Every structure is written in C-alpha cells, then in structure tokens.
C-alpha cells in the first residue's frame, strides 16, 4: 500500500457524490416518502391537515373496487401480451434469420415500430382504431366485416391495447433473439444432421435449447415491464370504458396527481411497488445476476 492509494481513499467520495445526491433526492427519498405518506391522510390541497392515520389507507385500498379492477386488468394484459409478444418475436427471428432475398427489408419492417415512441403510438392508433373514420374499420368494411368499437367497448379495449403494445415492442425482442441465434455454432446443426436428426428434432434440441438463456431473459423482463403499463391506456382510453383499461400505475397517477389524494396514492405505490420488487427479485434468481450479464 503506497501513499497515493491512501490519498485516493477519500477522493472516491467526491467521484460518487453527484450520482449519490441525485439518487437520494429522486429515488431513495421518494421511496421512503411513499411509505411515510401512506400512513397519513395527506391531501395535496390541505397539507397542514396531514395527520397520521395508521393503516387506514391500506384497509380502504383492500375494499376499493377500482383498485381490484386495475389489478385484474393488468393481470389480463400481462398474461396475454407475454406469449403474444415473445412468441411472435421468436417466430420473426427464425424467419428473418434464413437467407432469402429481401431479408434486410423484412428485418427493418419488423423492427420499424420500435422506433415509434409510446406517445406517438397512442395517438396514431387512436386514428387507426377510430370506430367511424378509422382506417382499420374502413378496410374491414371493405372485406365485409362490420365496424368494430375497438376502444369504446369494455370487452375489446384491453385487447386493442394488448395488440398495439405487442406491435410496438416485438421488433426489439426479435433483435435480441437474433443475437441469441447468431451465437449457436453451425457445427451443432451439421453434427445433428450426420446423426440423422430431422428438422423438428434439431430445432427442439439445438435451437430452443441454446436459446434458453435468451428466452428466459426476454420472458422475465417483458413480464416485469408489462406491469408498468400506463401511457397507452392514459392516452387512448383514459382507463375506460367502464374502467376496463385502468391499470395500477395509471390509477396511482390519477389518485395522486389528478385527485391529489397523496396519502392514498402512496399506499397504492407501496403495495404495488412491493409486488413488482418481489417479481424482480424472483427474476434475478431465475436469470442469474439480472439483465446485466448481457452487457
């Protein structure tokens, strides 16, 4: 140990200080605040009336039908968008990987929606799915299918949001699957062919087996990200019709920011945040160190 190393000891603090300050302000304190507020009746317009009310917010939350509707909605979203998006991504990656003319065009075509932000996606699809003047219904009418109330029907609205979310995100996962496919050495397929394996067998035992880490990573990150759904329902349906597209994160936003019920919104943040944290920890366990092993 020399002198300079000793001197470097305390300088380390200087280097981490800016990041530490910002993280404390905008991540750590808000997380602590949400626990503290959740035990109060904090109403943003009457901050001086804030007082400790124990677990009352949590008790009310358990009895809140809108909260349970939002939980049911997000469950439906997660369960349907996961297989749809990940399955399509794998299928597209397998198709695009093969050598065929125009291959680059197809790759770009499937990736293109990724470039569109969720704010743009929401407005664009609002026009595409419009019941009277939307292009999708105009085309459906042309082939003899009657106009559908995509976003105005409580039975269809969530399915519409699932569809356009998958459309927007699938190209990115296709790219990840493609990277995974590139890592499978060709010799494996040749060896399998010599051993007399048919196409299905080599797909199952080589492609799928070798893609397992990639698939696991994609499945778990999609799963957790899907729980954070907010922009599409916020921009397209405002959670309606009849709360059929309200999600927990959107309900937190509405309760805390629009209705200014900060105490109640905080209780929701704590409960829902904890649920996501538990899923994240399970994900880390399943995939090893978490996403970072891919960097």
């Amino acid at each position: 140990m020399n002198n300079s190393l000793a001197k470097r000891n305390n300088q380390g603090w200087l280097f981490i200080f800016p990041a530490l300050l910002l993280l404390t302000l905008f991540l750590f304190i808000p997380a602590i605040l949400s626990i503290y507020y959740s035990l109060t009746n904090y109403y943003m317009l009457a901050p001086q009336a804030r007082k400790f009310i124990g677990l009352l917010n949590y008790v009310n939350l358990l009895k809140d039908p809108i909260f349970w509707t939002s939980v049911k909605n997000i469950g439906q979203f997660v369960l349907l968008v996961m297989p749809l998006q990940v399955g399509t991504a794998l299928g597209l990656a397998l198709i695009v990987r093969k050598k065929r003319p125009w291959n680059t065009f197809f790759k770009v075509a499937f990736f293109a929606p990724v470039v569109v932000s969720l704010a743009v996606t929401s407005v664009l699809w609002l026009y595409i799915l419009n019941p009277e003047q939307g292009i999708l219904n105009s085309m459906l009418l042309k082939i003899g299918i009657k106009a559908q109330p995509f976003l105005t029907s409580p039975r269809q609205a969530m399915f519409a949001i699932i569809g356009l979310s998958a459309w927007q995100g699938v190209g990115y996962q296709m790219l990840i699957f493609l990277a995974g496919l590139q890592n499978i050495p060709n010799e494996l397929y040749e060896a399998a062919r010599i051993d007399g394996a048919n196409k299905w067998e080599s797909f199952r035992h080589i492609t799928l087996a070798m893609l397992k880490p990639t698939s696991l990573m994609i499945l778990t990150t999609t799963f957790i990200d899907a729980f954070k759904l907010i922009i599409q329902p916020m921009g397209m349906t405002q959670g309606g019709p009849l709360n059929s597209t309200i999600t927990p994160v959107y309900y937190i936003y509405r309760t805390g920011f629009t209705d200014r019920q900060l105490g109640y919104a905080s209780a929701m943040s704590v409960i829902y945040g904890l649920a996501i944290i538990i899923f994240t920890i399970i994900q880390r366990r399943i995939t090893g160190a978490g996403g970072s092993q891919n960097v």
Partner: protein
Amino acid sequence: MSDHPKKFALTIISTILITLLAFLFLFPLVWMIASSLKPEAEIYKNMDSFRAFLPSFNIDQWGDAYKNLLSRFTVLTYILNSLFYGLSVTAGSILVNSLAGYGFSKFKFKGQKFIFGLLIAMLVIPGETIIIQKFQIVKALGILNTPWAVIFPSLAAPFYIYMFKNFFDAISNDVVESAEMEGAGSFMIYWKIMLPMAKPAIATVGTLSFIGSWNDYIWPLMVLTDSSKFPLQVAITNINNTVPVYMNQVMAILTISTLPLIIVYLFFQKYLVQGLGVSGTGEK
C-alpha cells in the same frame, strides 16, 4: 431430386406470408407518413383503398400539412426543447454515472461496499410507482416548470453506474498508478485517460439516455405547465386536442417526432443491443 419442386413451393408460400406480415407491421407507419403528405379530405376519401398508403399525387401538396402545422403551432420550439432536454440528459448522465462508476472501481473508501450494495438494491425500485412522491421533491426544491425538473431526475441511474464500474474494472490499475507517478491528479486521470478509454460504455449509456429522454412523456407532462417548455411528446397531445383538429397535421407532427429517433437507431443500433439487458421491451 423429387424434393425440389416441393421446396420451391414452400419458399414461395413462406415469402408471400412473410410479405403480408411485413405489411401488417408497416401499414400504420406508411399510413402515418402518407397521410401527412396529402390534404385532409383526401385522407378520408382514400380510407378504404390502396391509395390510403400513397401520398398525394400532386407533389405540390406534400408540404402543405407541415406548413400549416408550423404556422399554427410553435413546432420548432418543441423540437428545440426536445433536443435540449435529450442532449442535456445524455451529456449529464454520461458524466454523473461515469464519475460514480470510476469512483467505485478505482478507489477504496470507507462505506464503499455498503453504498454500492444499496445502489444495486435500488435497481429494483420501480420508478413508475413513485412518480407522485418524486413530484413532491421537485416541488419542494422549487424547480417545477423549469428545464431542471425534466433533466435532474433523469441523470443518475444505478444501472449505468454499474455498467461504467464494470468497464473501468476491466482496465488495469497500472494505468492509474503510472499516471499518478507522473504527478497527475485523480480528476485529471479520470478526464484525460479513463474517460477516453470508455468510449463503448459512453456510447451505450448515451444512446439509451437520449432515446429515454426523447420518448419520455409522463414526467415532463407532470412537471411542466408552460407550453413553451414542452418537449415534442407532450406537445403531440396538445396539438391533437386543439380544435380544429386536422388529421394530416396530426400525422405530420407524429412523423416529425419519429424522424430523429430513426436517425439515432440507424447509427447507434449496436450500442442499443449492448444495453438491452435492463431497458427491456417498450411497454411502459
């Protein structure tokens, strides 16, 4: 071989299928761009024919929606705002996170292990659920409705710090020690030697933070009230809600806010895939 005709037919069928699929993926975007290049009435007239996906046949009309959009709204301000926020967040997050990554990698100080552990633990906090409380902090700091409210909370990120730390860990300590022998100060070593070596990490963090900032919608919507400070993503909603609403103008603003991202994706695709581990899937 009797196999060949069968194989040929299969190739044709699969090519037709994949072309249809590609059309399914592209039609919203083609429709968006085509609709921005024609008069409002023509959009409605073309809705159920192939012409919906073609711009106006009269090239002189192509710029009309854009011209009218620019005269009704301060689009240029929105673009400049988005660029300003995006570039500030990019530069700031490269600086703040690389400093911290370097601090954790090349220094030994008391409490280091604990703080780093805390940082890794913070990775699991879902930021989406604490935006209301974050808003309270920004309000208490008195920076609501200023660019700082948009920029500051987006700078430090445990994942980026972790990436930089890993990168610096891979660089031998000898580099630092020999520079110290020459009498260089710690910050000089970081700025002149280490940071220039970290270009791949810088590119990845920079690409991800620029895209993240450019696409951010809910946070700037919450902290900005003055529309002259809006970034494009927030302005879109404004434009789409200001009557009279012209569909071709809406499609024009959607196209305008998508174009810069196409450029970023084209040039920085490689770094995106490198950082894909955490940034995930696009549902938010």
